[in-house]
């Protein structure tokens, strides 16, 4: 069995590795942001699916259902479709939010969409993988006080990602004339950094929690 802390560290490592790997190829984030984001989302999403299945199996019965009030059942086609639709919805809403926050409406649609895809992959996808396909639960987990490890993990990463992306917007108007100051790049970097930070933080939290409980037992 894999502990959640290890999952966090593994993911953080994988994320960094993906980013570093992309620098070796011609489609790094700085050169071709849209291409990079697309490939990154596919790779990172696939990894999440793999990693989270057994975590979910372990936790589904006990924790994740607590908020929604009903246990998450195994994989069904219908629930998968529903989850997928929610995932698409989250991409769309991130796109809309980006436009509302000032991203250009008609130009740069591809860039905005790629960024939305990234955000959805970093926030909605983990929820889908670990909580099952109920939008209610996702929102509740993010907004409420966490009651279990999985919940606090999700909350931490989601909030860190969003805050990171938000902070990433600030360098855009500066007049440094750097190539990376173009719209989706700083926010994507911010989101990635925030996500990594969230992963590391929750890993630290779990380790400490474990130590605490051990010392209590002793």
């Amino acid at each position, binding site marked *: 069995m894999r502990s959640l802390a290890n999952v966090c560290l593994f993911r953080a490592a994988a994320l960094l590795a993906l980013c570093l790997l992309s620098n070796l190829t011609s489609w790094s984030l700085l050169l071709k942001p849209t291409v990079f984001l697309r490939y990154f989302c596919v790779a990172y999403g696939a990894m999440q699916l793999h990693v989270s299945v057994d975590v979910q199996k372990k936790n589904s019965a006990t924790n994740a259902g607590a*908020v*929604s*009030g*009903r246990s998450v059942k195994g994989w069904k086609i219908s629930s998968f479709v529903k989850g997928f639709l929610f995932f698409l919805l989250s991409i769309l809403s991130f796109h809309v939010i980006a*436009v*509302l*926050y*000032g991203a250009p*409406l008609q130009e740069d649609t591809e860039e905005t969409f790629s960024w939305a895809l990234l955000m959805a992959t970093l926030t909605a996808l983990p929820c889908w993988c670990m909580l099952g396909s109920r939008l*209610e639960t996702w929102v*509740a987990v993010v*907004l*409420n*006080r966490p009651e279990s490890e999985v919940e606090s993990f999700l909350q931490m990463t989601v909030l860190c990602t969003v805050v990171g992306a*938000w902070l990433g*917007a600030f360098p855009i*108007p*500066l*007049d440094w004339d750097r190539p990376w100051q173009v719209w989706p790049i700083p926010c994507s970097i911010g989101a990635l950094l925030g996500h990594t930070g969230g992963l590391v933080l929750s890993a630290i939290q779990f380790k400490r929690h474990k130590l605490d409980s051990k010392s209590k037992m002793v």
Partner: protein
Amino acid sequence: MGLGLKTFGLLLWTVALSVVGITLFTKGFLLNRLEVPIKSSCEESPIEGGGAGEEGGETQKKGCWTNRQFKKAIILIVDALRYDFATFNASLTPEDALPFQNKLPVLHELLTARPENSALFKFLADPPTTTMQRLKGLTTGSLPTFIDVSSNFASSEVMEDNVIQQLAQHDRKVVFMGDDTWTGLYPKQFHKVYAFPSFNVKDLHTVDNGVLEHLVPEMEKEEGEWDVLIGHFLGVDHVGHRFGPYHPTMGEKLTQMDGVIRSVVSKLTDDTMLFVMGDHGMTRTGDHGGDSSDEVGAALFIYSPAKLLQGALQQQEGQAVSQIDFVPTLSLLLGLPIPFSNLGMVIPELFLTFSTKNQTNNPPGYTDWAKNITGVEALRINAYQIKKYLDVYARLGEDLPKDVVSKLQKQLAEVDNAYQTAIDGETSIDDTFAALKRAKEGYIKYISEVKEMCRKVWAKFDMVSMVCGISVLCLACIASVCITMQSHDRRVVYNLEKQLSGIAVGVGLGFILGIVSEICTNGTLTTSSLAPFMLPCLGSFIGYTTSAWSNKSSKQTYKVLELWRTLKKQPVDWMVATMLVGWNACGLGANSFLINEDAITAFLLQSLVWSLLLAANFNRQSAPSKEQTQKRARAEKSFDIGRYITRPSLLLLFVVVVFSICVRLSMFFRACREEQWWCETPHFLKSLSTVEGGHKNARYFFAAACMALIPVSLRLFMSKNGNMDSVTPTVLNVKYALPVAAVCTSLYWAMQALPQRVLDNLPAWEQVILPRVVYVIIFSSFVSIVWKPLCLLLQIDRNYYGPDRTFQNGGRDRQLSKLYNQVKSRGTLPPKNGSGTSAKDEWDADTKRIPAVYGLATVYSAASLVMTVTCSQLVALLLGDGLAPAVLLLLVQMGLYLEFHAAVKRTQARKEGLSQEGSTTVLSQVPWPVVVGWGLMTSQYFFYTGHQAAIPTIRFESAFTGFYGDFDNNLIPAMLIGLNTFASQVLFTMSLPLLLVWPFCRGKWMDKKLAAGHPGNQEVLDELQKGEFVLHEHPVEYRLNSLRLYSMFLIFNIIKLGGTMVSAGHLRNHLMVWNIFAPRYVFEGVSFLVVCIAMLLSYLLLLRVDHTLAGWVGKLRDYCKTQ
């Protein structure tokens, strides 16, 4: 003194503190230059042994300091003639050329055909590039300072020594025609004046036609009728303001100018010089005022039938001279003394055939010699004149660095020695040439270094005054924070009087002490003394704090530990809001953030609102009981889309999403800064007559529809709440006058869509009648609100509404019973009718003696709403048709924000379910994040009503809505332009009371949804039913919380103002200080003043409403007692 006045006193005190802060800072930051009153005279030549040459005793050639080379001069000023308007690009075909290109071919023809008689220079103006500053520069030759801009429309006579004054003094006749700014500057000096009003930007032809009519006839008048002829054309500038340089009208105008120049050139005599110049350039949008190269780079063309230059001038592309160089050049060419304060440098190339010294020998290459020596001689006179000025200035003022001055003077002496030896020495001609060349360079170096030094020094700042200003502002901020915090506790009421008297004593003592100390140390009182300003501020602050500290209850609040504890208790949105405010203030220190401030403000506002939503959800869902959630989950197993969508949190989400969309939509109304090269001016900001084809109709009708919606929705809103049933002046106003005002505004816009020619031919009264009607209506609306602020209908005898009456007004019966729910029926009436039975029962039971009051539940918000809508109509008229949708959007956004706030508040009140007083307190306490959102919306709509914090984007044309442009004083245009520029500040500040009262009777859509979840305590629910009348029943909470709200809004504005002050002060030597930071400070300062005035006015209105309501209730109570 009532409680209301006491709180008003505290508010007034903080406002006064911050105003003093602004004054002190401004005095130190926008420092003025010392004007030296001395005038140059003909007899006192700056060089020893100088004076007019006596060649051949030709009296008419005799000049003052030099010989007089030309007898007469014609100066044609084409306002905003940019350098590239005057150049000629032969490779362009007429079809390819832009409207402003190749439209002045006469210059090109003269330059190629008679290269020795003509010259074209790039004419670099000093910023600020506004016409009056430039005229001052063009005649006095001195550098302007920033403060001069503010007096642009208050033409005041030039007191410094200047060319016009010198001409008049030496009996040269100056004939002037054109822009009447000149007559303000030089009221007595002209021999003959044909002035035309300049202020009306829409009028493209009056000034030009006037000049055309008189120019050539005046020229042709006999000898001695004139010596200098000045013509100032304004058409090009006005076309630029109105249509921009890319409009075909610009081509027409420039072609007209070409014709003028041609006719003048054809009639020139040999002893006359012609100058054609622009006083400044224009940006690609046709505005000016800043210091971009387009605005600074004007054109200067010089021509004379007599030989002007020795050989063609080496015409490099864009050879530049400074604008102030014109002054010494003209003076010496006409044989006049150079004005005393001139800092310009003669254009040496133009000094050709005269000398102050008799050259006895004619060595080979004499012409070269002469060419050099005359130029150098002119430079030498120029340099000595500047030396003299510098000496005098250094003696009078203390701002010039002494060591630099003495170094410069020594440098001049060295150069001059070298020059003397070169001339007098018996060296070979080549050596002399080399020495002359060195001397020439030396003089040029000296003059430009002096100019540089002065430029630096006059852009210097009075640091002490600036720091004092900032610290007084800090005091104001701290005081507002204290007032905000003490308002939490209602016991503070008993302390207010003491605080106020403490403040009064502090001010008095401080003032006396300040004056005494100033007299003791300096002996006199001057305007620059700081102590009389600083000490009263300090004294009042000390007076306030000591009396506040003496109060036991508030003592606890001020403990640092307590402060920290309350800080830690604050929810997430509080933190976010504070952070955003901090970010907003810090961002004012970076030029790229200032350039993009419009988009950043919208971004911050979005962030704030979404965090408010998150926090609201946190608050509500923090502890859902297990049972409830499970029940909910079970209920939701059957998927019901209707219930799903109308859940409270989703409703809140919808409101926020619509709000966000409004914010995003408003971004389409932004104006472009000069620095935003990527930005395209939106169609909404162009004037309607320049829009082409079908778009014109579409835009017009869209604007008219928006304009119509504003009063209509107010009417609906008020009649829904029963505020429209009475027959008071205010109600009549809302019913009839405001719609009429909207119609008049729309008609006025329709008139503006007419082609310019048609519009110009209309009689003057037809052009102004419609806006004037609107002004009258709006004024009467203001008066009626102040006079009769209550929109209530008291119905004492129920039978009055008999069946026939009900029949007439269909829904009234139903409305009455519905409204009766909100009617104040408890408290002020005999207790037997008290609570318990529902209003409906009472209605049915036919208790005739109970008076029915319509609209009591919304008595405060009705007055504020009428005020807001009236202001918005005024503002919409001034902003113009393109921005009417923006005004509507502003109101919609304001409404959504209020609804959101009200819903959150009501949820909170219901959940906490406190006592009566508790719920009143909860509802009327506006939290800090909400106030921050209000402030951010204020700045958002400053930008998105087509403004930027840059001088070229001020919309001067708004001063002509309803006026012809012939103003006696500057008050009216200043007010109109100010209202246009700070429209959003006025609107949001005037509607600030809405934040306080809105939760009491609006935001009810949340109630139904919540009723099931939080049943709440019946008493509180009753309390909520009473609406805003609760506020009247709890006057202490009402006063304290309104003071708190206003103080918080003041804090927000002070922090922003402080940000601009600190950044302007800290970056005072920054490259872009005059371009970005100083204008930002000026805009923020003026906006702050506007906000302060509006705040005080709306606070007084609040008190007035409450006062009249108290009187009304008293009367009602008396009546009930008699029954």
